[in-house]
């Protein structure tokens, strides 16, 4: 793609598809802002009501959507590196599991253990058992330090109630 650009940007090869998607997303957010603002009913005698700012921001977003769209049509000047999306999905999976454990009141330590092991695996480690143990020890230390020493309330599950 970058080669085509340097030769004068031939036709559609120069269009930055991600840029177009970003522009559309910005325009959608602008629409959501306006729809939400029109729903608000508030009587403000003088000055601006709570609807005004969302509308202003929406106008800005609409203009920027147009700007991003034009830039995208001109073609991406940035050639993007190849990405490996598997580790990203793995980390996001770890985050989702962590949230589920917290949501089902499974407690802080199991949730963090899972997150630690998932992230370590995403970064290329292939020792899931060892990483689970390390994550568990680390989460336990953090839990004890923060809930006992700093008296922060971290979510407690069956395991944490033992302490």
């Amino acid at each position: 793609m970058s080669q085509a650009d340097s030769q004068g940007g031939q036709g559609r090869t120069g269009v930055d598809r991600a840029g177009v998607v970003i522009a559309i997303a910005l325009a959608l957010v602008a629409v959501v802002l306006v729809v939400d603002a029109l729903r608000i009913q508030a009587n403000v005698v003088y000055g601006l009501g709570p609807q005004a700012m969302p509308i202003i921001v929406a106008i800005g977003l609409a203009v920027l959507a147009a700007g991003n769209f034009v830039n995208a049509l001109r073609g991406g000047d940035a050639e993007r590196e190849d990405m490996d999306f598997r580790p990203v999905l793995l980390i996001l999976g770890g985050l989702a599991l962590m949230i589920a454990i917290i949501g089902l009141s499974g407690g802080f330590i199991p949730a963090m253990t899972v997150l630690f092991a998932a992230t370590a695996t995403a970064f290329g480690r292939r020792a899931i058992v060892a990483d689970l143990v390390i994550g568990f020890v680390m989460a336990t230390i953090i839990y004890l330090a923060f809930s006992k020493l700093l008296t922060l309330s971290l979510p407690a599950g069956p395991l944490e109630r033992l302490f």
Partner: protein
Amino acid sequence: MDTFAALANGMAVALQPMNLVFAMVGVLLGTMVGVLPGIGPALTVALLLPVTYKLDPGGSLIMFAGIYYGGMYGGSTTAILINTPGESASMATALEGNKMAKAGRGGPALATAAIGSFVAGTLATIGLAFVAPYLVEIAVKFGPEDYFALMCVAFVTVSATFGNSPVRGLTSLFIGLTLGLIGIDKLTGQPRLAFGVPELLDGVEVTTLAVGLFALGEALYVASRRHQIEEKIEAIRGSLWMTKQDWQRSWRPWLRGFCFGFPIGALPAGGAEIPTFLSYSTEKRLTKHPEEFGKGAIEGVAGPEAANNASAAGTLVPLLTLGLPTSATAAMMLAGFQQYGFNPGPLLFADKPDLVWGLIASLFIANVMLLVLNLPLVGLWVRLLTIPQAWLYAGILVFATMGTIAAKPSVVELTMLAAFGVMGFLMRRYDFPIAPVVVGLILGPLAESQLRRALAISLGDPMTLLQSPISATLLGIALLALVLPFVLKGMSRFRANED
């Protein structure tokens, strides 16, 4: 003089044994977290915010000062030893610093960075102490329309200076402004963009956004391109100490760095990126050893590092006197104030002089501690860098989510954190700057309430924005700063076509 009395008072507060402990813990924690690759000072402050939840306000702000400077110092260590600047302000340092480390002069590079940071940081803190009272006097006269205009200037400069195109910077800013709208409108009690989710009524937490964008976003980004980058830690060989010649070549760049950093940081002109690069190019031009530039010239470390620290102290000027954060780190500091219900600004100087001057005095103390602790402990910090990347990022994610869990242990909040992480990842991938989002979130609601207050006072007449000379001037500057990059770009394209 007043300033001396106030500062002496502040010193008395900061030198209390407990506060010294807080400053020390802050400096150590800040350096420890800041030294980790990919973690800049803003994220350091965001990650360590939960540690201060249960402390008293004075102690926790003092700890903050330590974390702030510690995080900056740690960032420069990483930049020099493994060439991964955690933030754009350390990029100039990495240019020459990493070359020096490769040439076996890592010790003097770290030393000139540390001593230069100390010199410039101390000078800048003195500057802060003397400029702040004057600015406070001016700020008292500011009406809501003037504040609004000032925030407009900050919006434009923050989004135009970060990132490589104004459209991208402004897009980031407006994403932040949109997030800032979520929640209950403070003046009328109307919910906005909450979509019936009760947790959204309180609005988006700055820490959740910052940790999601910076920590999660960075982790996802690094994970996605892990196969391409190779990090190599340069061992510190040879002497840690600077030779006589190193000193001779360093002191002028330190002072010049301060002269760039402090004023540009103090003006709402958007962070430390500009002064560090100005300093780098100046040193490159003035040096007597031009042949060394690009191969590890000590001036190229001394100047930018001093500029970086001076501008960090400089950004505290608008933050403390006007409540105006002009960098992501300053926005995090503001969040630190807000967790105790304090709003920095002229009123805070009048209401809580102990707190404000105690904080300023702690900056001096933190600077001294950094100098005393860090050079001897540098071996320890370097060892942190040898933690395998997989465990490092796994640990960072655990810490990052822990902060959110400690603040608001709800599924909605954690989901928001994950969503911001994905957003941060996409913004990195598609080259949108992150800092304007954070500044937009924290400044947007403030700007809105000032604008609405101004218009309520003027009975709805928008001309009030132009009738105050201060506000008219500031709005003019904002407009100019907004339009100028586009005009210049258009002109250069025109010229290119002519050729």
